[in-house]
């Protein structure tokens, strides 16, 4: 799906007073809405994906669809227009620690390559230290949390560019 095509579609909508377009073609789905007070929402530009994608943090109105503990999730982040990003999200509520001890180096830093099953942080819940492992192989692109901060369930912690 080239952006050019979408632009043309949008122009067509405007010129012809269309309020909605949806095109599904195999793996590709384009949905455009216009007017009636609603903004144009080019919501899902989803690509085929290895990991079961969920929409945490981007849940539209209505019910959350993710019902299983989502650990890694694809995200259409603004910072990643080119390459698709994966998120590592908190699997439980608690306090996050970025290093095994106050004096140690952090588990991971931006730019680090990570493997599946590599520990990326610790979440303390009820005095128990839970090691959180990545479920994706790739490179840490962004760290979204700070050492000692509280995190809630499914809160994004790391952006990873998958290999």
């Amino acid at each position, binding site marked *: 799906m080239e952006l050019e095509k979408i632009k043309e579609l949008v122009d067509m909508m405007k010129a012809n007073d269309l309020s909605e377009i949806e095109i599904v073609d195999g793996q590709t789905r384009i949905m455009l809405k216009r007017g009636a007070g609603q903004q144009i929402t080019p919501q899902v530009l989803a690509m085929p994906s290895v990991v079961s994608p969920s929409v945490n943090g981007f849940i539209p109105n209505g*019910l*959350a669809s993710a*019902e299983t503990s989502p650990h890694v999730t694809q995200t259409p982040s603004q910072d990643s227009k080119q390459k698709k990003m994966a998120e590592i999200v908190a699997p439980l*509520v608690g*306090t996050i620690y970025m290093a095994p001890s106050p004096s140690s180096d952090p588990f991971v830093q931006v730019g680090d390559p990570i493997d599946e099953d590599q520990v990326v942080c610790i979440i303390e819940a009820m005095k128990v230290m839970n090691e959180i492992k990545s479920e994706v192989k790739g490179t840490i692109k962004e760290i979204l949390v700070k050492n000692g901060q*509280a995190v*809630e369930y*499914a809160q994004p912690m790391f952006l990873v560019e998958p290999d």
Partner: protein
Amino acid sequence: MFSKILIANRGEIALRIIRACRELGVQTVVVYSEADRNAAYLHQADETICIGPAEPAESYLNIPRIISAAEISNVEAIHPGYGFLAENAHFAEVCQECKIAFIGPSPESMRLLGDKVQARNLAKHAKVQIAPGSEGSVENEEEAAKLAEKIGYPVIIKASAGGGGRGMRIAHNEVNLRSAFHNAQTEAATAFKNSELYLEKYLEQARHVEVQILADQAGNVVHLWERDCSLQRRHQKVIEETPSPALDNNLREELCKAAVRLVKAANYVNAGTVEFLLDKKMKYYFSEVNTRIQVEHPITEMVTGIDLLKWQLRIAAGEHLKLRQRDIKQQGVAIECRINAEDPANGFQPCPGRIERFISPGGFGVRLDTHAHAGYVISPRYDSLIGKLIVHQKTRPEAIACMKRALQEFHIEPIKTTISLCLEILSHPQFSKGKIDTGFIERTW
């Protein structure tokens, strides 16, 4: 008073607790599952924490996640609401260990009253009448059959650890009894991991009358009179009212005093409800104690003018009851209708989905407790209660008239609700006469 508490519940009761807290100047942290992420009531909280996915076991029933949320948000107390962990003594214990106040009774009195056999014995001790039945638990079919013969059929078999109608069977003769005993045992073992059963005389066409209690940490106990919850469908209350149209003032006083004796004997603290069954001859028997705030608490608030939720918070914070028994009056009549997202025309099937149109009743004498609104999505994951409509008027006929007009104003579309059923019940001559019992709905609809 606490400066910040956590609310470990959802929906209308979470909103009810938020309201009390806001009025008391207490900050609220509300935990939620992903299914409730977009619920509007969360905007009323000072903080919200997502604790897990929709399944209750991974969110609202998950003790470690809730405690962890309480720790990171640094609250002084947890209010469990009703349902979920509200009557879980272990949860209360964990709170205690973590130095977080549990807004409810102590784990000990929850355990004591949660065990139905122990509670029966306690009632006997406190000179509160109990239905004829087994002294303690009943070991086997033989023992049950012998006892049933002695007290006379019908009898009811209940699980000691029971609740919500599970592990419960009614038997009208010995053949019935033997199979019922076996089934109840299996069910109790599965549901409560405790197969202990006991047996009682089953009261036919009984009324369900319960007494609201408040008890502080200094041992002061007051009652806030009774609620009549006889209108039930499959052990689920549908309409509640206070005062009970079945009681005269003597019996009312007696019942309420019995309830106070019982909770005093249990060293009970905070809000609680003592349930009784009332037979056709107006004899009452202790049934059980609910160690939490009840769904139907608003009708008591309306006639007494006392905010029960605020008192739950004050008591847990160590304040003493400033209410004197003689100042607590029943003024007028209050009725509550539970509005469930269920289809009465279709076997009461739950009707989850998005509410497109929501026109709520209002005006003089009308109170609405709901977290729903146009645009709200009812999750199929949780119970179907979407609101409680309460009216308060000087007399019972006026209260009935007010409730009818309020129900007629209430439009929820396109999902089906129990509004229509409630209207039919309120229009039934038996209801006007106050001549109903726990079997009335099932016999009539």
